[in-house]
């Protein structure tokens, strides 16, 4: 099918992809470049290669303890969000009509429409009403509620696609409902559950606005540590730590795709 107009279309497509991807990935360049640049100022012209900034990240106590807090919050929030999300996915796909309509939509859109910084502040206010010290629990529940829509979306999609024929067959043949759930339905949903869990963990790990007001000074997740450093100073160490953070998370996502044989990025 070679007709008029293909050349102009090819040029248009190449141009739009180039500009689009340039815009999306452009901001990464100065960070990478300054993380390896010997100059102690961010950003600065090239002065030579160094790994000094990465060394100071790895030896820094506050970054490492921040990473540990982030891992704890991420695991807790992912586990909680999985319970919320997988249960809700069943209701969203198979529940009564009112759930499949309005309730599902507000469940999926709610945490996206309400700004995260407001959710963080509001949870703080609610806890202070009861004079309750939040600590890790506040961070975990805030993150869990925020990431659960992503889990609901992915798991509900998979549940929709896989249908209920096999389950019906198993039940017709005399299987009990709990047995069907644990030996058939959930194992079949495993790719969706794993993929959405990895995505949820990552979203929780990098989050700033939710954690901002919920992190007491002795319990700051890594992004909050970097954020507060960045308010005061701009050094290549910040570039190095954010590259390490991004690199580890992207690597973990890639590994999870290989190990669990799932497609996290549909």
């Amino acid at each position, binding site marked *: 099918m070679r007709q008029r*107009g293909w050349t102009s279309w090819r040029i248009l497509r190449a141009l739009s992809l180039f500009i689009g991807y340039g815009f999306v990935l452009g*901001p990464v360049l*100065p*960070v990478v470049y300054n993380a390896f640049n010997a100059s102690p100022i961010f950003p600065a012209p090239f002065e030579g290669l160094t790994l000094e900034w990465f060394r100071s990240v790895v030896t820094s106590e506050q970054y490492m303890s921040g990473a540990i807090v982030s891992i704890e919050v991420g695991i807790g929030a992912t586990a909680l969000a999985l319970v919320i999300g997988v249960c809700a996915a069943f209701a969203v796909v198979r529940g009564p009509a009112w759930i499949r309509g309005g309730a599902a939509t507000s469940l999926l859109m709610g945490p996206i429409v*309400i700004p995260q910084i407001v959710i963080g502040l509001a949870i703080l*206010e609610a806890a202070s009403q009861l004079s309750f010290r939040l600590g890790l629990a506040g961070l975990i529940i805030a993150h869990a509620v925020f990431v659960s829509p992503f889990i609901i979306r992915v798991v509900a999609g998979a549940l929709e696609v896989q249908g209920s024929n096999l389950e019906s067959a198993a039940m017709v043949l005399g299987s009990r409902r709990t047995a069907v759930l644990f030996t058939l339905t959930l194992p079949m949903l495993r790719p969706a559950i794993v993929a959405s869990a990895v995505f949820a963990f990552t979203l929780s790990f990098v989050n*700033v606005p939710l954690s901002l007001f919920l992190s007491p000074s002795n319990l700051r997740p890594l992004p909050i540590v970097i954020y507060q450093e*960045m308010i005061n100073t701009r050094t290549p160490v910040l570039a190095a730590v954010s590259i390490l953070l991004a690199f580890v998370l992207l690597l973990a996502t890639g590994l999870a795709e290989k190990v669990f044989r799932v497609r996290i990025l549909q």
Partner: protein
Amino acid sequence: MEVASSARSLPLPLLKKRPRSYLIGASGLGLLPAVLAFGIAVLWPAIAIFQRSLEANPLADPSLVHRPWDNYAKLFSEPLYLDAMIRTLRVSVICTVASILISLAIVVGLTAYRRKEVSSIWIFALIAPILSGPIIIALGWIGLFVNDGIGFMVVNAVRALFGFPEGRVLDTEVAMTIGTIHFVVPFAVLTLYPVARAVPRELLDVSLTLGVRPVATLWRVFLPMCRSGLIAASIIALAMALSAFVNAQFLGGERNLVLTTLVSQLINTFNPTMAAAASAVLVVLGLALVAAYGRILARLEARRT
């Protein structure tokens, strides 16, 4: 949310009305943990913050009389706050339009007229900014926007083109708007891409065989088929733009406040009651805008069909 009845696919020819009740999850009780969590972490805090917004600032002079609506009156009368609200609206509308255009360019480039699906590395590159977090992106934009950075030169070249005076870019509304667009684009693409990918290839082929040029086919056939995706993506984009925080904080500086950064600044200056009032306004604004936008789009849709 398109959720078809999964019971429909059941091979039960003897039953006229197929029962759903035996299916696992049919009772809808699965919603319970979600409702509980939302009640604890969203609904109750929302009420708490609204109550707080009616109180007087604890640091204020106790002899002054405080009426419940005073914080809101202040919010809608003092220039600093009004300014932030108007800027919020302006930035989020610009961001919605711009991010839809950019993500449309990307999605069309990735899907239209392709025989095979693009490799997943292309999608991964788009999601990478989400997965690596807002901090690295904000740092990157700072690196681009400092005086004599690449972004600085590009913005000033565009300014010169339209006859605006050149000047600094970092800590301006321009920088903040660009940063917020960047934050929104991946989410818009993720919403749009599945819809664009599902457009049947044959329809485009028919149009091309009938002699319509590729670009015109794209405009007349491909884009109309993506409409539902465009609508969903623009609603998501609007909501994300309203709630964008990190880029606005680092690129807009202290003088170009939007509502999210205003909330943060009010907390930092020990004014929790005003922060609560600003938060309440932000939430109401977000819900109202998204609802109104959804209605408008639904009405347009109804008029077309």
